[in-house]
């Protein structure tokens, strides 16, 4: 259940980038999306 769950800071960064957390591979414990993951994440190309 933790997979795809963004940390509070990561979640804010992702919404500002317009990135859907479901498309981000989390590197945190059990697949959690860390702040670093969110900073590196890029919007998927259509």
């Amino acid at each position, binding site marked *: 259940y933790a997979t795809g769950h963004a940390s509070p800071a990561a979640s*804010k960064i992702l919404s*500002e980038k317009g990135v859907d957390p479901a498309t981000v591979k989390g590197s945190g414990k059990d697949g959690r999306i860390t702040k670093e993951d969110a900073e590196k994440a890029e919007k998927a190309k259509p």
Partner: protein
Amino acid sequence: MYDLIVIGSGPGGYVAAIRAAQLGMKTAIIEKYPTLGGTCLNVGCIPSKALLDSSEHYHNAAHTFKNHGIDLSALKVNFKQMVTRKREVVHQNVEGIQYLMKKNKIDVHQGVGSFKDKTTIIVTKDDGKTEELKAKNTIIATGSKPTSLPFITLDKERVITSTEALELKEIPKHLVIIGGGVIGLELGSVYARLGAKVSVVEYMDGLIPTMDKTMGKELQKSLKKLGFEIYLKHKVTAVERKGKEVTVSAENSKKETVKIKGDYVLVSIGRKPYTDGLNAAAAGVKINEKGQVEVDEHLKTSADNIYAIGDVIKGAMLAHKAEEEGVFVAETLAGQKPHVNYLLIPGVVYTWPEVASVGYTEEQLKEKGKKFKTGKFPFMASGRARASGDVDGLVKVLADAETDEILGVHMIGPRTADMIAEAVVAMEYRASAEDIARMSHAHPTYTEAFKEACLAATANRALHT
């Protein structure tokens, strides 16, 4: 022209102003009272905690010191000093806010702020002089006021609200409290510890009715030890004052009338949003039938450059809820996309034992039809609690029956107001009960009770019960 004007300087208002200034906005704050800080600092959280701390010291000196091997003679309460110290604490906090405003270059305007139109606010000072301010954006943070019942005449002497209860000239002989919520029980605890007889009349079937039911039941046991007389399922029908005597009449579940005579009545049935004098209509800001300013998911009102936060909008009336919303709006105005997770805003009652809670209650989970497991650990089994003598209460963890994810944490016991922070972090990261159970907790500490309750929730494998 300001980028942002904040009306109201409570925890929501002043924090919003600071965050906006940090983000580069030219910011002003309007406050009608002579001091900043709002309800929380002046007549709420801070003064009540000061009196709760002082009265708990006295209560310990009077009742538990002997057991600890400390003998005292001629112990007495200097109530005047207690109130004086409380005022000093308030003063220091208020000065602190003044300093923060200056440091962040926020203009402070003293007076009542009311809308002339969407971008113009008239500030009316105490001497009647007015000043017009212009703002691109405005945050309404006007807060709340104590609410009463239509048939009660508050005389502010013996029929009082929390505001006057923090400034009494004497310790009541018998304080009758209408409402078994947070404010009533905190102030009731203060005076019960100082020797007053305290009676609580509550309409619902339990104390602190918005929290998990186990908490209300446990708190009731503790308050009874303190001498509280508690009338549940009693509907107050009349309050009369004759000289120094006050009588509260209430109807019990059998429709019989019960009369409780005391020398002070505290009316603490709740708080209502406050928008008097704001002239919200002039700016096109809608106020609903509950008196709350209507807001959308961005906390924006029906006027597109005006936002509202804190007690004046929907949601829990908590200082830290208002603060979160203040930061949320300031960042939204700066083009950021913040988020407030309302489920994870903790609620705390500062009685002793303290009550603290976050997430879903057992009742809410049952209502949602969610399958969950319960883990409990009593402080009676905690070595730290036995050493300090604070053995009342327990930690209760609710976790998803299948995934083990923590869904709610409810604590009553020593220092739970601070302990709850661990549960907030845990839930923010969607920890499972087993996650917490496998993390090291310093020994001996009260927080071990949270770990043990998580062990109990995981697979009923607590180590110390």
